[in-house]
């Protein structure tokens, strides 16, 4: 056999091997859940009976609430920190936790009085949680010497005062119905209370090394590996009683495929997922993975630069809104999950939000008529926009650009940019459009703040450069619930008429769990609460 021939045979064999590997690797997912015949296979590395392993995808940026940014903090924060209020898992409304009851408002609505539970204990032997600790924690957010990254969030707070050991008052500069959310332990943890004594004893650096909270779980400093693994042990002296689960481990795994395989191998019990194809491939199809979905309080919207022509005319804004096929976005990018918003950015599950019955239809003919009304031929429309560069938003932009092209618009394009470049460019008036997403919570104020004049760049992220709702938004901060609903409804109508932002998509969240975890409850904006979970027998 010649050398040339043998090389050819070797190459042929290699090709067959490579193709063989590829074919095995690309096999279709299992269509039905099948329990394994040999139970021993799935007992490999099964976690301890009293431990839950909850994988998180994001790193935690520090442990002091005042310096903590990013969503990576939220899940561990709810384990080891305690808040006056926590979010109800099913309604996402604040419910008392360390506070005994909802706050009492003064007649003018500027003072909130809150009584806290007696007997709540700090971790690591720092004694009892007092009103002094509560006041100390919140005053740090407004202390100019502290430089809290959340100081803007606490714009209404003048001072927190401990009236006695178990009563604290919050003095506000003006009435603000949404202020209670600042006192609620949630993403990204600004409602967390820290121990004054521990702070004086350990200092900022000490508390970063050895976080001290009063929540249901104690931060295990011995087993903590930054960016790798968090471990929490049950707080035996927790004022509501020690949690049922002895230990929660939180490994950080970013790759969705690895996460899914680790769940299949029972190395992980649960995780939040953003990757819809992985969700589709595994959930309910691969034993023992099951899942739950929930409507996130979240909006993806297209901000229109209303100071640029022709976008200074609401008819042009409505015209561009009519060209976008939002159902195509939902089907193609999110495989049919999620909600298509009404004609305003407020999520239907938010408090004080009514269904005002105004929708945005995908109607190209109407778009052309409206462009003609403002003196622009649809074929001459030119606009540029930007969005995030992740795979999700690249797909998002592609569907939008296809919509614009199919609508016969001249040269309209949303360009996906690398995350840092997007952050740099999104505040420029050279953009006509900015496609951006915002997670928030059920109070409408944080969403409405996105269209407030105070948030126009460079001071904020109102990329529509629009301030016509400012008076109404300011008024909407009243504490009277009915009055708030009335004003918020008025704002919804105004947003629908003016269309400064085109609401595109309300995201759905996914929680993957194995059959080992029970008690997973879902609601608008799932908020991990260690108390709701148990280990199935």
């Amino acid at each position, binding site marked *: 056999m010649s050398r040339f021939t043998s090389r050819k045979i*070797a190459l042929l064999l*290699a090709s067959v091997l*490579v193709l063989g590997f590829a074919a095995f690797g690309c096999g279709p997912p299992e269509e039905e859940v099948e329990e394994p015949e040999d139970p021993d296979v799935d007992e490999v590395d099964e976690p301890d009976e009293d431990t839950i392993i909850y994988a998180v995808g994001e790193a935690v940026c520090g442990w002091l609430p005042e310096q903590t*940014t990013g969503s990576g903090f939220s899940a561990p924060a709810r384990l080891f920190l305690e808040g006056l209020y926590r979010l109800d898992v099913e309604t996402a409304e604040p419910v008392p936790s360390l506070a005994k009851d909802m706050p009492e408002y003064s007649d003018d609505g500027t003072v909130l009085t809150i009584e806290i539970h007696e007997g709540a204990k700090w971790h690591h032997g720092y004694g009892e949680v007092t009103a002094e600790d509560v006041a100390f924690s919140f005053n740090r957010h407004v202390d100019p010497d502290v430089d809290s990254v959340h100081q803007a*969030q606490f714009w209404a707070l003048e001072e927190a005062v401990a009236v006695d050991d178990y009563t604290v008052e919050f003095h506000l500069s003006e009435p603000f119905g949404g202020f209670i959310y600042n006192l609620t332990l949630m993403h990204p943890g600004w409602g967390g209370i820290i121990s004054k004594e521990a702070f004086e004893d350990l200092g900022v650096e000490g508390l970063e090394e050895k976080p001290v909270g009063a929540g249901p779980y104690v931060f295990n400093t011995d087993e903590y*590996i930054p960016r790798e693994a968090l471990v929490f042990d049950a707080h035996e002296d927790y004022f509501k009683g020690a949690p049922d689960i002895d230990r929660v481990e939180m490994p950080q795994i970013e790759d969705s495929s*690895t996460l899914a395989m680790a769940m299949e191998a029972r190395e992980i019990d649960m995780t939040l997922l953003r990757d819809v194809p992985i969700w589709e491939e595994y959930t309910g199809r691969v034993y023992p993975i099951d899942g739950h979905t929930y409507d996130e309080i979240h909006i993806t919207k297209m901000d229109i630069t209303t100071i640029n022509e022709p976008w200074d005319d609401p008819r042009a804004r409505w015209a561009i809104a009519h060209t976008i096929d939002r159902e195509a976005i939902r089907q193609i990018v999110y495989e049919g999950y999620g909600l298509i918003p009404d004609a305003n950015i407020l999520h239907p599950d938010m408090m004080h939000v009514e269904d005002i019955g105004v929708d945005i239809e995908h109607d190209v003919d109407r778009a052309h008529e409206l462009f003609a009304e403002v003196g622009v031929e649809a074929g001459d429309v030119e606009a540029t926009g930007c969005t995030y560069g992740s795979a999700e938003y690249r797909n998002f932009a592609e569907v939008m650009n296809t919509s614009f092209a199919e609508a016969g618009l001249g040269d309209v394009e949303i360009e996906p940019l690398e995350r840092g470049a997007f952050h740099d460019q999104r505040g420029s008036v050279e953009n006509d459009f900015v496609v951006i997403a915002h997670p928030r919570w059920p109070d409408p104020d944080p969403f409405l703040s996105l269209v407030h004049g105070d948030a126009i760049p460079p001071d904020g992220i109102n990329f529509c450069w629009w301030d016509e709702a400012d008076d109404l938004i300011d008024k909407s901060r009243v504490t009277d619930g009915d009055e708030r609903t009335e004003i918020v409804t008025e704002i919804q109508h105004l947003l629908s008429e003016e269309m400064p932002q085109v609401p595109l998509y309300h995201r759905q969240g996914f929680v993957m769990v194995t059959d080992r975890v029970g008690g997973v409850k879902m609601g608008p904006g799932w908020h991990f609460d260690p108390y709701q979970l148990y280990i199935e027998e």
Partner: protein
Amino acid sequence: MKTYAVKRLLQGFITVIGAMTVVFLMVRLVPGDPVATLLGDYYTEEAAQVLRSEFGLHQPIYVQYFNYLTDAFQGDFGYSFVTGRPVYNTLVEAFPFTMELAIASLVFALTIGVPVGVMAALNRNSWIDMLSMAFAIAFISIPGFYLGVLLLQYFSLGLGWFPVTGVGGPELADRLRHLVLPAIALGAPTAAISARMTRSSVVEVMGEDYIRTARSKGIHERIVVFKHALRNAMIPVVAIIGLSVAVRFGGSVVIETVFARRGVGYLLIQSIYDRDFVQVQFGILFYACVLVLVNIICDLSYAGLDPRIRYN
């Protein structure tokens, strides 16, 4: 030799300084504000100013560079934007896991690659030769991350022999179980290259005069192969092994991500994702140092391996 070693070390030092400068500039000149990334959807100008000031990003770039170099020469490589910990500590903690992975993958590569290469050479143009070279081409062609996923599918999920993620506990057996699949995924391309190198080298050596002489003296074929041929055939193989150690460190970035394994590569990927400039620049500096060091050691080791080689 001594002069040459000093010269190579000096060149290495200049390379490292160059790498430090390039990395420093690159991470700052690419578009994107790390503070905006950190704050994400919760960005406010007030919060951003607080963080910029905290990280020293409000200073001109040449001031930042001067501070970076002076601090680095004093052993202070800065603090992570994300975790607030010294980046040196974080990397040093992750290093042993990458090192054990690199060594395990090298052991796998050599124990598979060299014998296969020898067998192929001794059975030149036979089915053994063709099959082993076919496997070699296949393992060079398959990307490490894909091989990793395949191994996980069959050995972890299918057979349940090995875990999917992590580095394992303190017990040796557990550590080894966590190490097997990543080591194979990382070492397979090196095994394939070693096999091909060994094969061609042994084929070449087996045609040399001294082999013919040894055979004519009636020495047993096994001794001819293992004592006379293999020893000489290994010189080019050993040379590439040194470099492949450095390459293994680079490859660990992907493999550690696929296996969610603690290590320098995984740390680097997470830092890039989090736009943690300080950790990224120290991670890349670390890789640059490893490459430079391994290169110097390889260059110097040639003389040790082959006495005919001398440095001027």
